[in-house]
Structure formats: structure tokens, C-alpha cells
């Protein structure tokens, strides 16, 4: 039985929990009790307004009725089955598997995610492996653990009859390997953090600025007060210990813009607006403060983390497509070097100046998240005759609150109405992409 066909059971379960009679609930949503009875026994599929009305009457989120708690589990099983390794899996029976063997399903899900995490590390490090013996040795250790976990999990999942002593032994092995894997991954991350720190000290002005912004969580309380911000900006820059004049100049421009945005959109009023509106709404914010969309996006993205209901990412690029500002967000990696994916709405906006684009996107690859993006390209500089028009594009990145696990998909497994994008060609597994600039390092081994 598919996930959506269990909607009726969830409606019934919720109604009984609330102690509401079938006739009462049916009347409240203007349907007959007999029709509700058919729905509750999963003999009628529902959606749209009726599902919304029932969810409202039962006081629950619509997604809880349509997807249920097992949605994430089933979605991950389907994701695992959609990989080349899952070619033989009965993809259309993932929900049945999860229902009949929830423990095994959790195990497969955990192993799939674990492999995904490690594959991600492999992708990131591939370029460095050939040149760094310490890294190569660490990766060997990690990949050995992944191999052991994958093989053991495969045995547990695929072997119909397995003796209890073997089952127990494999469970112990899985646990041991998971612990070693976690330690190995932590060790690698610590090593990379050190390496990244070394690089940062001798890196580009852009890198220095990003490190400075990260250290401040992209928010500067000292610039929120009214008045001339120049003295505060100088103090902040002096405290930044920048290696050269270039990042100081760039940082001053960025902080001056921050201060100007703060003057036009005072913090107290912005926070009141954020609290009053249930969703991130850059257009509504721009209207409320009579500012352009770019300003509203910057202001939202640079609020303190505890002021936001969800973390927000922001990318700004100039007319050449070069990134001039990056605020990363989990699940939506922003490449440090080279060009990003040309399918990003940021670049679509560049081609259509002043057109506000709202687009759902999904990053390619295992475990990638789905996001709402808001993008616009706006002219910069004073208006003047016979001068080239330069534009700057902003893209605000908002995580989807509700995972889209039961939405229609195309034959290629893509979610309808959601643009499939990547990070950058080099690590993008997507095949037959018209935007590809260079081959991916994601070889068949990965």
C-alpha cells in the first residue's frame, strides 16, 4: 500500500484520538459520513481542498496526514533504490518493506546515509588525494570502513535466513565500524579544517572576507544603531587583522552597504515583520519597507541566526557571473573556486534583469536538499545616459520546511516543478546536462 493511500488511516487515527465522531467531522468539512468512512478506510484517495479542510478540522499539518511519519524513511529507501546499486531493488515496494520490516528499513536507511556522507567526503577530497599521503591513508581507512559497513548491511538486508549468532555478530560489526567511521570522519574533518586554516592565512581577499563574516555569523549588531557608522566600521575592520589593503577596502564597502540597509530597514521593525509572517517573504518585506528586493534579501540573510525561523543562504554575483558575496547554507553547497552551476536561478535572473524569480530547486546528488530560491538582477550605480548598464544579481536560499517526499516525479526521477541543479560541474553527478562545462570527477566508482 502506497504512502498516500494510508492518508485515510491517519485521518481516522487522528479523529479517534480527538474523540470526534465521524458524522461531526464529515459535517465540518461538508461531506457525508459515508464518504468520510470510505476515505478513512483508504477506499477513496483525497487531496487538495478536502485534505486541507480535514487537516484544519483535525488541527494538524496537511503533510502529517498525507505523508505520515514514515515518509522520510520511505523516501530514503526510494532514494537508495534509485542509485545504480539499487537497480535490482523493488522500488515500488519500498513502503511495503518499511511497513513490514521497519528495523531493517532503518538499517538500510542508516547505511545508505552513511555511505552518502562518506561519498561526499570522497568527492571533496578527490583532487587532493594524489598529492597528500596523510589524506590518502586516512581515506583508505574511511573507505575500508564504508566497505565493511556496506557489505555487512547488504548481508543483513539480503539474506533471507541468517543464524542468530551471525546476525548478532554482524550487528556488532556494524556498530564497531560505525564508531570507527565516525572517528575517521572526524579526524579527516579536523585535518581539513587545519588545512583550510592554513590556506586562509595565505588566501584571496574574498576568502579573508568570508572568514571574517563567518566569525561574525554574518551579523553586525554594532551597525544596527542609527547614526554615522564610519567609526564603527573602521573599528570592526581593524579588529579583522586583514593581511592586506584589498580585503580592507572590500570589507569597508560591504559594511557600508550593511549599515545603509540597516538604516532603511531598522532591526526592530524587521524582526516584528519576520515574527508576524509565517514564511520568509522577501517581496513582502521589500514592499513593507519600500526598498528593492536585493536590499530586502540582504537584510533577511544577515539577521542574527536566532532572529530567523530558518537559516537563510545568500549569493550575490556581478554581471560577469562572478560571485561577490556568499553566505552558505547547509545542503546547498556554494563552490569556493570556479563557477557554480549555470542552472542556478541566480544566473537565470542575470538574463532577465528586474524580473523577480521564485523557484524551487533541488541539488543533484545523494542527500541534497530542496530549497525555495528568490532571485533578481537589478541595475547598480547611478542612472546615466550612454553608459553601460551593469546589473547585480541576488539569490536568497530558503530551506523547504516540509520535505517533498510524495510529490509527482518525472520518468527521470525528478520532482515536477522543481528545477534540478548542481553545485559545480566538477562534482555534479548529473548526466546529459546542457549546462555542463567540464566532465565530472564523479566516476562510476562513486
Amino acid at each position, binding site marked *: 500500500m502506497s504512502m498516500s493511500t494510508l492518508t485515510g488511516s491517519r485521518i481516522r487515527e487522528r479523529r479517534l484520538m480527538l474523540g470526534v465522531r465521524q458524522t461531526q467531522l464529515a459535517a465540518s468539512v461538508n461531506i457525508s459520513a459515508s464518504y468520510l468512512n470510505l476515505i478513512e478506510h483508504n477506499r477513496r484517495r483525497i487531496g487538495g481542498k478536502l485534505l486541507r479542510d480535514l487537516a484544519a478540522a483535525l488541527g494538524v499539518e496537511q503533510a502529517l496526514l498525507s505523508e505520515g511519519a514514515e515518509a522520510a524513511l520511505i523516501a530514503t529507501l526510494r532514494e537508495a533504490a534509485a542509485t545504480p546499486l539499487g537497480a535490482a531493488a523493488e522500488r515500488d515496494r519500498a513502503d511495503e518493506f518499511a511497513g513490514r520490516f521497519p528495523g531493517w528499513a532503518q538499517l538500510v536507511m542508516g547505511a545508505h546515509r552513511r555511505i552518502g556522507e562518506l561519498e561526499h567526503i570522497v568527492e571533496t577530497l578527490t583532487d587532493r588525494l594524489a598529492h597528500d599521503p596523510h589524506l590518502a591513508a586516512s581515506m583508505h581507512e574511511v573507505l575500508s570502513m564504508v566497505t565493511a559497513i556496506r*557489505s555487512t548491511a547488504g*548481508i543483513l538486508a539480503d539474506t533471507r535466513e541468517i543464524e542468530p549468532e551471525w546476525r548478532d555478530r554482524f550487528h556488532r560489526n556494524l556498530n564497531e565500524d560505525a564508531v570507527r567511521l565516525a572517528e575517521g570522519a572526524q579526524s579527516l574533518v579536523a585535518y581539513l579544517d587545519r588545512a583550510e586554516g592554513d590556506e586562509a592565512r595565505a588566501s584571496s581577499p574574498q576568502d579573508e572576507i568570508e572568514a571574517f563574516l563567518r566569525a561574525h555569523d554574518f551579523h553586525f549588531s554594532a551597525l544596527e544603531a542609527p547614526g554615522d557608522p564610519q567609526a564603527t566600521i573602521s573599528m570592526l575592520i581593524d579588529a579583522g587583522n586583514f593581511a592586506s589593503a584589498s580585503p580592507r577596502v572590500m570589507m569597508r564597502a560591504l559594511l557600508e552597504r550593511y549599515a545603509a540597509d540597516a538604516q532603511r530597514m531598522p532591526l526592530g521593525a524587521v524582526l516584528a515583520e519576520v515574527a508576524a509572517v509565517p514564511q520568509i517573504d522577501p517581496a513582502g518585506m521589500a514592499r513593507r519597507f519600500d526598498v528593492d528586493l536585493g536590499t530586502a534579501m540582504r537584510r533577511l540573510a544577515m539577521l542574527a541566526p536566532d532572529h530567523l525561523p530558518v537559516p537563510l543562504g545568500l549569493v550575490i554575483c556581478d554581471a560577469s557571473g562572478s560571485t561577490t558575496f556568499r553566505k552558505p547554507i547547509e545542503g546547498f553547497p556554494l563552490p569556493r573556486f570556479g563557477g557554480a552551476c549555470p542552472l542556478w536561478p541566480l544566473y537565470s535572473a542575470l538574463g532577465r534583469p528586474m524580473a523577480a524569480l521564485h523557484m524551487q530547486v533541488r541539488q543533484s546528488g545523494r542527500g541534497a536538499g530542496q530549497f525555495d530560491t528568490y532571485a533578481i538582477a537589478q541595475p547598480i550605480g547611478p542612472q546615466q545616459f550612454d553608459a553601460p548598464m551593469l546589473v547585480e544579481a541576488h539569490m536568497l536560499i530558503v530551506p523547504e520546511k516540509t520535505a517533498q517526499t510524495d510529490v509527482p516525479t518525472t520518468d527521470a526521477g525528478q520532482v515536477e516543478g522543481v528545477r534540478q541543479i548542481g553545485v559545480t560541474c566538477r562534482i555534479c553527478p548529473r548526466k546529459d546536462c546542457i549546462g555542463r562545462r567540464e566532465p565530472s570527477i564523479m566516476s562510476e566508482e562513486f
Partner: protein
Amino acid sequence: MGKHVLLIEDEPNIIEAISFLLNRDGWRVDTHSNGIDAVEVVQAKSPDLVVLDVMLPGKSGYDILRELREGAATSDLPVLVLTARGQSRDREMAERFGASRFMTKPFSNAEVLEVVRELVTP
């Protein structure tokens, strides 16, 4: 009793998993976990197939493979080389030293079984 596989690998849980897998598939499995005396062990046990990890304590899997190819009794012995690296250089080395097949970690159980069955008919 099925055909005989010698698994040379130093990771105990990989040894356990692959041994279980091959045993269930009808193979007789011996294991060994260091590189130093691996060639002698192969010669002593005379397996039908060797599954050989590259990074072993004491001696590299490539060196073991080269010595096996130089020995008259083992020059044609099917050897499946396992490595956690998988870059083209490693594949080239495995081929140059005479690997019958090359497999990159992490691999699936089905892949292991398929390759082992291809290399030796039980």
C-alpha cells in the same frame, strides 16, 4: 566442497563479511591478513582464486601480485585486486602487475560475487 578462495585482507570486518558471503555461495574460504608471508601462504594453500587487498601491513598487494606472477605455479592464478583508491594510476598498476580483475572499495556484495564467479567457475 566448492572451489577454494584465499582472501588476503587486513580489515577484520571486511574479512568476516566477504567470507560469509562466499561461504553462502558455496566457496571454501581461507583468509590471511598480512602481506609479509602472503606469497608463501598462497603457494602453500594452492587456492583456485586469490582476493587481494592492495594496502596490507608488511608488503603491498602489488608486490605480492608481481611475485605471484613470477612464480611458475601461480603465474596464471586468478587474482582479484581490491583497493580503496581507484584512481586510474592504481588501475594501471594492477593491470601491469597482472591482476585478473580490479575492484574499488566500496563495492557491493553482488559485484564481488559476480566477479568471483566469472573468474572461477565453482
